[in-house]
C-alpha cells in the first residue's frame, strides 16, 4: 500500500518534470540531437538538473542498509560493457533520433492527446514483445 502510493507520487513528480522541462515536446529533443542544424542544448540542462539532485541523494542512499518501505535496493549489479549494451543503445539512439521520443516522454506525452504519442507507446511496447519473443522464449 505504502509503496504503491510512493510509486504514484513519484510518477506524478516525474511527469510534471518532463512537462516543465518541455521534454514531452519531441521537436525539442530532436533539436538537441541536431548539432549541425537548430541545436538546442536544453536537454543537457534537464540532465544537469536531475543529476545535481540524484548524484547527492544516491551517494547518501548508498550508505543506507535498506529502503524505507522495502527490504533491499534493487540496483543493477551489472558492470560489464558488452555487445548487447552498445548495440542496444545504438538501436535505441536510432529510434530516438527518428522520433524525438524516449519511453518517459512518450508516456507523459499522452497527456497532450496526440495520435503520435499513442503510436509511439504502442510501437515501444511492440519492441518489448519482439525482444521477449526472440530472446526470452525459454525462460
Amino acid at each position, binding site marked *: 500500500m505504502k509503496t504503491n502510493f510512493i510509486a504514484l507520487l513519484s510518477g506524478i513528480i516525474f511527469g510534471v518534470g518532463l512537462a516543465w522541462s518541455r521534454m514531452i515536446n519531441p521537436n525539442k529533443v530532436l533539436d538537441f540531437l541536431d548539432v549541425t542544424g537548430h541545436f538546442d542544448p536544453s536537454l543537457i540542462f*534537464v540532465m544537469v*538538473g536531475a543529476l545535481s539532485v540524484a548524484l547527492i541523494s544516491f551517494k547518501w542512499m548508498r550508505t543506507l542498509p535498506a529502503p524505507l518501505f522495502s527490504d533491499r535496493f534493487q540496483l543493477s549489479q551489472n558492470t560489464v560493457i558488452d555487445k548487447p549494451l552498445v548495440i542496444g543503445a545504438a538501436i*535505441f*539512439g536510432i529510434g530516438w533520433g527518428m522520433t524525438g521520443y524516449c519511453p518517459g516522454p512518450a508516456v507523459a506525452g499522452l497527456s497532450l492527446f496526440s495520435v503520435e504519442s499513442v503510436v509511439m507507446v504502442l510501437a515501444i511496447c511492440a519492441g518489448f514483445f519482439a525482444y521477449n519473443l526472440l530472446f526470452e522464449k525459454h525462460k
Partner: protein
Amino acid sequence: MENFTPFSALAGGALIGISATLLLLFNGRIAGISGILNGLFFAVKNDRLWRLLFLLGLFLGALLFAIVAPDFNTPRQHYPLPLLAIGGFLVGFGAKLANGCISGHGVCGLANLSIRSLVATCTFMGAGMLTVYLVRHVLELAA
C-alpha cells in the same frame, strides 16, 4: 539556439531527480521508464501494480501541468507516422537489449556512478545525433 530554455529545463530536471530519489529511497526501485513499462507485461504478477501506478502518475503529472499551463507544450503536427512506428519499435527493442533508456541509464545509472550507464548514454546520444543528421539534412524526411 533561439529555442533554448535553460531555466525550465533545470527546474523540470530537478523534479525528475527528486522523483528518482523518492522511488529508490522508499521502494528501492530505479525510476527507469522502459524497465517499468516492460515489467507491466513481463514481470511476475505481484510486481505489476506499482508499475501501473507510476506510469499513471507520469501521465497525470503531465496532464496536471497542461491544465495549469495550457499553452506550455503543444502537440507536434504532421510528423510522418511510419518514422514514429519504426522508430518507436527500435526504441523499445534497443532499450530492452541495453537494459535501460534515458531515465534508467542517463539519470539513475549516472547518479549511481555506473560506467556501463555512461557508455549507454553516450551511445544513445551519438546514434541519435547521427540519425537526426540523416533524417533532417540528408534524407530530408522531416523538418
